[in-house]
């Protein structure tokens, strides 16, 4: 009775090393496929190098293991702005762009690359945009998904200031703005992104007040998403510390 034994708890324990080996082999194969399925030497209209992006995202999995939720809210082809909360030194916009790109299987840009030097060039190859409303507006009009981060804070539940000029670029480009709550740990690999529904303007405004109000609404939605997600736990006494950036709320 092989089928019965295969589903029994004991058989599952006996199969465990084999299943782990198969899963690891499958992960390696998929990583290798991602690295090789597009020929090298291609950069897109914004200078994003698909081959380098795959290599770096594969390497980034050593640092972050990100689970992404709510990606079904994002448009399949149109441009959209995704606003994430950021913890200090967490590179939230970068790992969010990587994770969402893999979830929706299309390029996702992030705002905030430096303009000069090797770091700026590397960020451009990975889909980085300058932190300039015209740059972001151009990408959104071209139908790109763009991730921008609120100002970084030291507390995980807090949402920093959202640059209303970037939100204004999305309003001018006539695209939706999505809040996305992120949690990560400086000591662990686990990170999570939860994308909410598009935040709408609650009142029609004709002037620049529209972008300021929309930025405030996004901050409210982000706070709500973060409280729904709960705190990330390391399982260590660090979670008890109020200033560790991990908990204490």
């Amino acid at each position, binding site marked *: 009775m092989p089928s019965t034994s295969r589903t029994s708890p004991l058989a599952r324990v006996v199969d465990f090393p084999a299943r782990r080996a198969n899963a690891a082999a499958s992960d390696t194969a998929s990583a290798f496929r991602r690295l090789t399925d597009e020929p090298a030497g291609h950069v897109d209209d914004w*200078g994003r190098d698909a081959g380098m992006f795959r290599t770096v995202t594969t390497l980034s999995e050593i640092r972050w293991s990100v689970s992404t939720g709510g990606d079904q809210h994002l448009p399949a082809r149109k441009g959209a702005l995704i606003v994430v909360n950021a913890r200090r030194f967490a590179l939230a916009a970068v790992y969010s762009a990587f994770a969402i790109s893999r979830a929706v299987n299309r390029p996702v840009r992030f705002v905030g690359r430096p303009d000069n030097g090797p770091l700026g060039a590397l960020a451009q190859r990975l889909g980085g945009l300058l932190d*300039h409303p015209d740059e972001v507006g151009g990408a959104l009009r071209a139908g790109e998904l763009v991730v921008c981060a609120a100002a970084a804070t030291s507390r995980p539940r807090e949402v920093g200031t959202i640059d209303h000029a970037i939100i204004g670029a999305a309003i001018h480009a006539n695209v939706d703005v999505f809040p996305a709550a992120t949690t990560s740990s400086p000591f662990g690999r686990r990170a999570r992104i939860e994308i909410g529904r598009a935040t709408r303007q609650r009142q029609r405004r004709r002037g620049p007040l529209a972008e300021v109000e929309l930025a405030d609404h996004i901050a409210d939605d982000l706070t709500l998403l973060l409280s729904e997600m709960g705190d990330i736990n390391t399982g260590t006494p660090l979670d008890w510390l109020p200033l560790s950036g991990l908990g204490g709320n």
Partner: protein
Amino acid sequence: MSGVGGELGTLVASLLEDEPWVGSLAGIDADPPRRRLQRTSFHRISPDDHDRIVETITQFNPHVLVHVGVWEPDARAAPRVAATLTDQAAVSIIGAAAECRALDSIIVRSGIEIYGRGPGSLTRPDEDAPLRPTSEWGRTVAEIERTAGHVAERVGVTVGAVRLASVLGPHVPSPLGRLLRQPVVPFNATSDPPFAVIERRDAARAIVAAARNQLSSPVNVVAPGAITCLHAIRRGRRIPLPLLGPQWWIARQVSHLTGAPIPDHIGEALTRGRLADNGRMRALLGMTPDISTTDVIDHLYRWPSVIRKQARVPAAEQVEPDQVSA
């Protein structure tokens, strides 16, 4: 049409000849056209001969002026000569066209170098981006646009600027094309930024479409996609030469000696990149480029260095010297 003697100008003229809305076509340049033109009346006039240019243009009295008579630095002339010739041609041709009562529209050839690549400049500027040229060629095309704009405002006609990326194609004199075809090609070791180009036929189609639609605003004409110098070198199977900061000066001098000078706008493209947003092409011109940047670069390496043509009369049928004497 000015600049009809250049490779791009000749191509534009031949496409304009096929347009049903073109009644008659006159071309001016210092050099004769590169191929036979059927309907174009060609006038060989030097750009500094203002009197003859004014006389020829006012006599023709055009409805549409297409100004392609610009000299890219180190393409056909050294940077200083190129700037002088371009300035002379712009002033005399656009100035002469302003005297024509029938004139409705001016189309000028410009370049995406007009946006500049200074610190904080946009990665992919659209037509509304501020104009802050940082190279000699960028300042030259900005001056052409300014001259055409002033004239158009004064005489009440529309002016359209076709801002082209670096034009590549067989026989097109291009410093970028010449550099990339060298056996050893330098690239920026620390950044290697992306740039975009445009194939000469797509560029010519865009200029013709601008004339047909009487374009009244600037438009970026850039092939889709982008490429970095190192990617281009790999595709062309050239030897890459990584360079850092001050080494570029030495590379420029050596490259100049080997016949592929690197003008400042090309150096800027290789060290800071050069992209532009071509999203308005379809709306303003009703066309999009056929060939992507990567394909243009692939074609660049496929064009033969020497084109060998067979003799029109086979050698066996040629008349022998003794037969001639008999």
